């Protein structure tokens, strides 16, 4: 594997300009001071209760996501390019979804194969012909970006269902500003705090026509045991909207109401953090206790807006991912600004043969997996794991894609033996309302804390960093 691109240091000893001031500050700051503030940060996280639950562990423990106090910095120029690329990508995602559930031009043009859509479990036939306000399907997108050199941003994954992590973007900044006021005084860091306002106005802008002048927005959570519950309560609080569970909602005459101490109150827009499958036991999984019976018929009647829309999984599916550059070109007639990782589709015999021959060098992902579960990282895997994966691949090739192992960029990070480079990615959050698409400058930087590790997911021991976009 090639030497990774380091975001601070240029090989040969020079610094990239965005990091010059940070480097000076680090030189002046004794390591003990840094360690002391790291501990203070951890204490703050614990007191505020910024925790997440890890599934599959015997004890249902609440854990902290490790926070690294060294910020990840990008220049305003780099950000401008990234922002343009993200807007382009999300515009294409929305147009693709509108097309798939209506005219299907892209299938007729044979850009994307039919069976990839119709045989895909995340395709929702219920959405065929369904109008959604302003044709917005993906109101909130979290696009995972990696860098491998100074010039390119590469999309690793589009998250168009219920992307999480934005609370960490906001809390990381709060805590950094509290702990390192001196460092902020020496930089011009673009603020992120208007995200809740932007989100609320995006959600209000897509209210159904039958809504009153001041549409009522609520955030639907699966409840306190969900791994992202802290984020749900945090956002509801910042947006000033009710945090509801399925049992708080009831559908009457195809309208959605919440049960309040003053009786039933109509809800117009639901920012839902519950997966499609669990939304409505009458339409989807009948065993779901998280959903609201009848929600889908209220949706079909156009009396409620769901954000994101139902059925967006078909746009961020890993099998569709490899077609994204063509999708962008097809709808927008533009060259994609953000690159894709070269991807082998194991469903195609030629690609499968290549993947099987090169398992040791590739990353193999489940088409429907997420959170870093069920993934093979060839170079880091044992022989036995590789062989087990080979069997899985042969049995169900259409369930997998493969990609080269990317040398994700690195960023200086606090470790037990002082500052050292660790691999990072970035998840910016793209908001789409009726009129405009906005992105708060920055996003969530995730960092793989183990030396050499490429897995940044919090469920797999990754941490986070504050992300600074310099306002030049």
């Amino acid at each position, binding site marked *: 594997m090639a030497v990774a691109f380091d975001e601070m240091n240029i090989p040969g000893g020079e610094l990239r300009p965005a990091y010059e001031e940070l480097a000076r500050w680090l030189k002046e700051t004794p390591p003990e001071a840094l360690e002391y503030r790291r501990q203070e940060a951890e204490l703050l996280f*614990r*007191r*505020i*209760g910024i925790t997440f639950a890890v599934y599959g562990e015997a004890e249902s423990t609440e854990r902290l996501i490790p926070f690294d106090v060294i910020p990840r910095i990008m220049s305003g120029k780099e950000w401008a390019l990234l922002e343009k690329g993200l807007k382009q990508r999300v515009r294409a995602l929305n147009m693709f979804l509108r097309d798939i559930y209506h005219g299907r031009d892209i299938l007729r043009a044979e850009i994307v194969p039919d069976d990839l859509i119709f045989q895909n479990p995340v395709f929702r036939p219920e959405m065929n012909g369904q109008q959604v306000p302003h044709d917005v399907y993906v109101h909130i997108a979290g696009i995972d970006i990696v860098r491998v050199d100074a010039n390119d941003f590469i999309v690793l994954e589009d998250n168009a269902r219920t992307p999480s992590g934005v609370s960490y973007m906001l809390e990381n900044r709060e805590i950094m500003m509290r702990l390192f006021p001196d460092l902020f005084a020496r930089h011009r860091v673009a603020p992120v705090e208007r995200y809740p306002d932007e989100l609320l106005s995006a959600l209000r802008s897509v209210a159904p026509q039958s809504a009153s002048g001041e549409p009522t927005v609520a955030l639907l959570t699966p*409840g*306190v045991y969900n791994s992202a*519950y802290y984020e749900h*309560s*945090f956002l*509801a*609080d910042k947006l000033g909207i*009710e*945090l*509801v*569970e399925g*049992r*708080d909602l009831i559908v009457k005459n195809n309208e959605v109401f*919440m*049960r*309040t*101490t*003053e009786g039933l109150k109509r809800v117009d827009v639901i920012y839902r953090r519950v997966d499609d499958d669990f939304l409505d036991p009458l339409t989807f999984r009948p065993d779901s206790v998280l959903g609201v019976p009848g929600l889908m018929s209220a949706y079909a009647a156009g009396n409620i807006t769901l954000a994101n829309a139902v059925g967006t999984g078909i746009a961020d599916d890993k099998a569709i991912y490899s077609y994204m550059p063509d999708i962008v070109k097809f709808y927008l007639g533009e060259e994609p600004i953000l690159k894709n990782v070269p991807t082998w589709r194991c469903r195609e015999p030629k690609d499968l043969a290549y993947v099987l021959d090169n398992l040791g060098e590739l990353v193999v992902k489940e088409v429907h997996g997420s959170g870093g579960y069920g993934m093979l990282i060839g170079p880091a895997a044992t022989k036995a794991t590789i062989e087990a994966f080979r069997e899985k691949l042969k049995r169900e090739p259409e369930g997998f894609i493969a990609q080269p192992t990317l040398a994700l960029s690195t960023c200086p990070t606090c470790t037990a033996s002082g500052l050292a480079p660790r691999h990072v990615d970035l998840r910016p959050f793209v908001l789409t309302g009726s009129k405009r698409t906005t992105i708060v400058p920055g996003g969530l930087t995730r960092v793989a804390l183990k030396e050499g590790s490429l897995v940044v997911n919090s469920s797999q021991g990754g941490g986070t960093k504050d992300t600074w976009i310099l306002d030049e």
Partner: protein
Amino acid sequence: MLSRTAENLYWLARYVERAEYLARTIDATLRVTALPAAYVGKTNEWDSALLTAGVAASFYQTYEEANEHNVVDYLSFSVDNPSSIRNCIEAARLNSRSVRTALTSEMWDTINSAWIELQAVWSKGTSTREDLAKFLRFVQETSLRFDGSAYRTMLRNDAYWFSRMGVHLERADNTARILDVKYHVLLPEEEHVGGPLDFYQWSSILRSVSALTAYHWVYRETLKPWLIADLLILNDTLPRSLASCYGNLVRNLDQIGVAYGRQGPAQRHARGIRNRLEHSNMNDIFQHGVHEFIQEFITDNSRLGEIITKQYLI
């Protein structure tokens, strides 16, 4: 506000209040049992503690004997006792998490810190009297901090009133339960064999509702059983008296009624109980029978809980 939010706020306050009450009960019992038997008689004070906590039946399913070790463990740390102090704090934290958006950061911090301390410091229980005293102080301070931060930081709206209702309903229940278990030592002199040993029983009752000093300020008298009963039942200047709890419950329910523009069965029921307390005097109560009076009150009080739940919380 969401019915579930109101419900959580109401129960959150009840759990915190209950934890404090249990801590006070244990504290008071420790004091009485530290005295030589000649001063307190032969009653098993640890048994009374279980009775006032309302968990005697479930206790004897696990333990044979109500002694200090067993009772302290069951009331404080037991995982099996749904209303042990530990479970109260756990439940309060869970409730807080579900209604974080309705809590001020100070209230959340109080509950979350208590929960963290419970796990970090008290997960194995206590091994010495000194430790136990520290633990009981920690519980009482948590409750004071919670109450104080609610009072000082919450908006005066339905969220605050539902939370206060939880406090007062739980408090009334706790005070009534002490009276229920101990009423026999409060009967007027001519009706029972009084003796010096009752003095310690009386001060123990007052201590468990933090009213020992208050008693002297109110009556400027030595401890007299009917005055203790008067203080705990009818004196509305004592925050833990039944009269005071009901004054507050009626006020909170009225505030909600005004804010929502309508009254209901909860308001009527609470006013009924308050009026009965207002128009009673200790003579009537003793004639009617203290025990009957208290039991009736306990039933009425939990009935109010049910009515509030039906009217607002589901």
